[in-house]
């Protein structure tokens, strides 16, 4: 092991921040391998498969090398090399011109998920004058919205207290594959070893959740019906915490009356879960003193997403499991002062909110915790429909609209019509051929910023290798563009160090001083305090009025805020756009339920298929089928099959095991990319490829949750041998 340079830094293979701590090994200027950083309180020296494959990702032949401008027709994929000055000038010129002609809101920036650069995107939009930060409508904020307006708890609260729990309901979540080394694995296996019971509520039993003691194999998209029936059992069997309900809940009697219709017998044909099992799971949860619900991202992809999260929030509350040991808690954080964010939130006005092209949450609920947001897919719709006005420029920083959101056909149609499209990425993206300008950015291993932090750990990022191409970092790009647009005062006149020093001011250190701590600074956690009800239930919202989330300073079972704005005061039930109970007439042609998952052990959404060590583990797009379902169709393991829904089709390989409902088939989302090293091809983005997004309805009336925009990812399909 001689001749290596060892550099402490963060892993950059997933997000949102912060990454796990790593030591990067460099030999002769080449990034060779990583080793876990034991000093990091986040990953404690452990890393996942993705982290170890980082050098292959950084050195991929797919890396963009220099800025480019499109010379062929849209979609043709012909580009010419340009300089950074030309790229920045072209973008700045276009944005200035459109701002003058159509108003600043004609610009939309996509951000499917929270990233360490999200607040820089917001800052640019703020300086420019557009509220159109476009969030996916399917990730984290959908659940968080319902929890906030029911319990006063915002992401990541109400956190399942794995360490003290005796019963954990893993609901619509892959607990391990989303952040294997960030503690979720350790917490799960330690809970199991301690004797905690694990219940997995989900249509498929991935290997991680297969550690569960009880599996509740629910039909995709029907979690709200299950949660409502669990409320029914809790209330009718008097399994609730009378004292908590009396003191801290608003509208319990209205709930009692409202949920009479949602009996376990009502939920059974919808959810595919037997009434007996619904009762059993509810009784276990309600009567176990230390019981937590780990509600995942899978619940946010349904037309009844907000009903699910609200029902779960109410369930946590009335069973007395909120902010108590082993339940769902409000974390207290550490003694570390929070770094200043660069968002410029103080500039929000009502006029700003009114300009949103496709509000992700209804306007009376904007801004929410991340800021103002438009829904990603519906911003594309505005280009086609020109309602309420067409977005003219879309910037896609590290996101791939044709594979990241539903309705790929509509997205391609919109990209054809869009005036100006900028792709910022490290690699070729699925829809790069439509870009007017392509901006190549450095990987996190080729830059020394930004610093990253968790609630109790902050560390400077160090550069592992010199950039392998003509790159700027994502951060430098926005600072430089800001300066070129004439917003230099808001962008530290292009100085990243000045930018980081401003953020670090609350900690009383500079970036150079932070860098002097190679493994960062760890702060002690504050001692846990439970039952912080008075404080939590009077938390103020991020709305301009700063009005509290909960007007009665109690759990909003009956939600007067929602009622006031024309939404259901109590959670209810919406069928998915297509389902056995909602559209039984379709079953003859399409007898199986289809849905997809977004997380896998080796990929992040639509990334990383080009990394050979990872691709070797999951080489082909597949559809998971029960052995009986496969047999009825003469399908064998590894056969290529055609999957057809009323909206589209895919060609994938059959993956057969018993860990899935026989009436359901599921695929992994995000397939399109080739792997050159292994000679594995790319797949078409539209029908006949392996893109799950083509399979679903994007009907604006049927496919979206009216409150939180969640896009449904359920439909009916038939599967046949290719």
């Amino acid at each position, binding site marked *: *092991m001689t001749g290596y340079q060892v550099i402490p830094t963060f892993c950059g293979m997933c997000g949102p921040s912060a990454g796990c701590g790593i030591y990067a090994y460099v030999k002769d200027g080449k990034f*060779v*391998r*990583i*080793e*876990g950083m034991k000093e990091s309180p986040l*990953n404690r*020296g*452990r*890393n*996942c*498969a*993705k*982290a*170890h*494959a980082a*050098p292959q990702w950084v050195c991929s032949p797919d890396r963009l090398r220099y800025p480019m401008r499109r010379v062929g027709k849209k979609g043709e994929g012909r580009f010419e090399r340009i300089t950074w000055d030309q790229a920045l000038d072209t973008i700045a010129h276009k944005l200035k011109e459109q701002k003058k002609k159509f108003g600043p809101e004609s610009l939309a920036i996509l951000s499917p998920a929270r990233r360490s650069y999200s607040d820089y995107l917001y800052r640019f939009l703020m300086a420019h004058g557009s509220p159109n930060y476009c969030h996916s409508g399917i990730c984290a904020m959908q659940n968080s919205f319902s929890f906030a307006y029911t319990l006063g708890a915002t992401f990541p609260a109400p956190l399942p207290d794995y360490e003290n729990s005796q019963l954990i309901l893993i609901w619509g979540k892959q607990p*391990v*594959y989303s952040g*294997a*080394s960030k503690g979720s*694995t*350790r917490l*799960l*296996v330690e809970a*199991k*070893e301690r004797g905690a019971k694990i219940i997995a509520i989900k249509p498929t*039993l*991935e*290997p*991680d959740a*297969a*550690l569960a003691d009880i*599996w509740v*194999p629910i039909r995709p998209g029907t979690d709200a019906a299950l949660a409502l029936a669990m409320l029914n059992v809790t209330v009718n069997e008097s399994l609730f915490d009378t004292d908590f309900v009396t003191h801290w809940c608003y509208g319990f009697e209205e709930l009692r009356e409202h949920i009479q219709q949602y009996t376990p017998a009502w939920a059974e044909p919808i959810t595919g879960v037997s009434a007996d099992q619904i009762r059993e799971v509810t009784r276990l949860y309600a009567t176990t003193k230390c019981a937590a619900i780990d509600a995942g991202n899978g619940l946010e992809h349904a037309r009844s997403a907000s009903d699910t999260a609200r029902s779960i929030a109410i369930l946590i509350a009335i069973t007395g499991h909120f902010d108590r040991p082993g339940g769902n808690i409000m974390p207290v954080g550490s003694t570390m002062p929070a770094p200043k964010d660069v968002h410029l939130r103080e500039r929000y006005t009502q006029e700003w909110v009114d300009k949103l092209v496709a509000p992700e949450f209804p306007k009376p609920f904007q801004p929410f915790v991340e800021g103002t947001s438009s829904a990603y897919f519906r911003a594309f719709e505005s280009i086609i429909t020109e309602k309420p006005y067409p977005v003219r420029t879309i910037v896609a920083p590290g996101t791939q609209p044709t594979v990241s959101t539903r309705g790929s056909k509509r997205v391609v149609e919109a990209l054809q019509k869009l005036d100006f499209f900028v792709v910022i990425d490290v690699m070729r993206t699925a829809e790069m051929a439509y870009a007017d300008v392509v901006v190549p950015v450095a990987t996190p291993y080729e830059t020394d910023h930004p610093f990253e932090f968790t609630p109790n750990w902050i560390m400077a990022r160090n550069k592992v290798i010199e950039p392998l191409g003509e790159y700027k970092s994502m951060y430098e790009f926005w600072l430089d563009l800001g300066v070129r647009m004439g917003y230099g005062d808001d962008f530290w006149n292009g100085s990243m160090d000045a930018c980081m020093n401003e953020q670090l001011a609350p900690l009383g250190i500079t970036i150079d001083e932070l860098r002097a701590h190679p493994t960062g600074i760890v702060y002690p956690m504050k001692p846990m305090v439970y039952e912080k009800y008075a404080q939590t239930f009077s938390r103020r919202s991020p709305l301009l009025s700063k009005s509290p989330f909960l007007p009665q300073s109690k759990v909003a079972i009956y939600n007067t805020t929602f009622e006031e704005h024309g939404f259901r005061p109590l959670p209810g039930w919406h069928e998915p756009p297509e389902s056995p109970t909602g559209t039984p007439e379709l079953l003859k042609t399409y007898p199986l339920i289809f849905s997809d998952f977004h997380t896998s*052990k*080796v990929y992040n959404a639509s990334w990383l298929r080009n990394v*050979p*060590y*990872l691709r*070797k*583990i999951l080489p082909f797009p597949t559809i998971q089928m*029960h052995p009986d379902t496969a047999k009825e169709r003469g399908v064998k393991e590894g056969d290529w099959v055609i999957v057809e829904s009323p909206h589209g089709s895919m060609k994938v390989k059959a993956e057969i*095991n*018993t*860990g*899935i*409902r*026989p009436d359901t088939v599921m695929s992994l989302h995000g397939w399109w990319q080739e792997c050159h*090293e*292994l000679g594995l091809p790319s797949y078409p983005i539209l029908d006949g490829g392996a893109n799950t997004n083509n399979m679903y309805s994007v009907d604006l009336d049927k496919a979206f949750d009216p409150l939180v925009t969640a896009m449904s990812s359920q439909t009916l399909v038939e599967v046949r041998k290719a």
Partner: protein
Amino acid sequence: MVASQYGFDFDPKRCVQCHACEVACQAIHQLEYGVGWRKVVGVWKGPFPNVTSRGVSLACMHCGNPPCEAVCPRGAIKKRPEDGIVLVDQEKCFGCHLCLTVCPFGAPQFGNDGKMQKCDLCMDLIMQGKEPACVATCPAEALRFGTLQELSEQAARRCAQKVTESSDLGS
């Protein structure tokens, strides 16, 4: 007799099949694509809905009496007396695959050069007092490493912990 036999310990109850061990191994040894010195194999059990899935992480076990060593016609496979690590001499190996036919774990691997390669227990790392890459990275701490004596003592300690934690022993 080996002075102090090194080995792996694996707890299938902890494995979540994340494949971190597998890729950490490939990365540290810079293995060519398709060659894996360590592999995670998942097994589904039980009819729907009483289903479990367990994973096993497998690599060379550095056996006490290695069958591969016994059958190698070139004497290319040797067990080191000081620590029991089973090593293959690439100079001597001529790629006959006989070792693969007798190994119960499928550990011997063959790359483009046709010669046998396999886990060397990250000799270079353990000489520095570190753990093998697969063990160091395992997020579930399902893989452990040490001398057989150490591993057996650790297992006994874990068992004792469990027994004393079960409530009916009184306080």
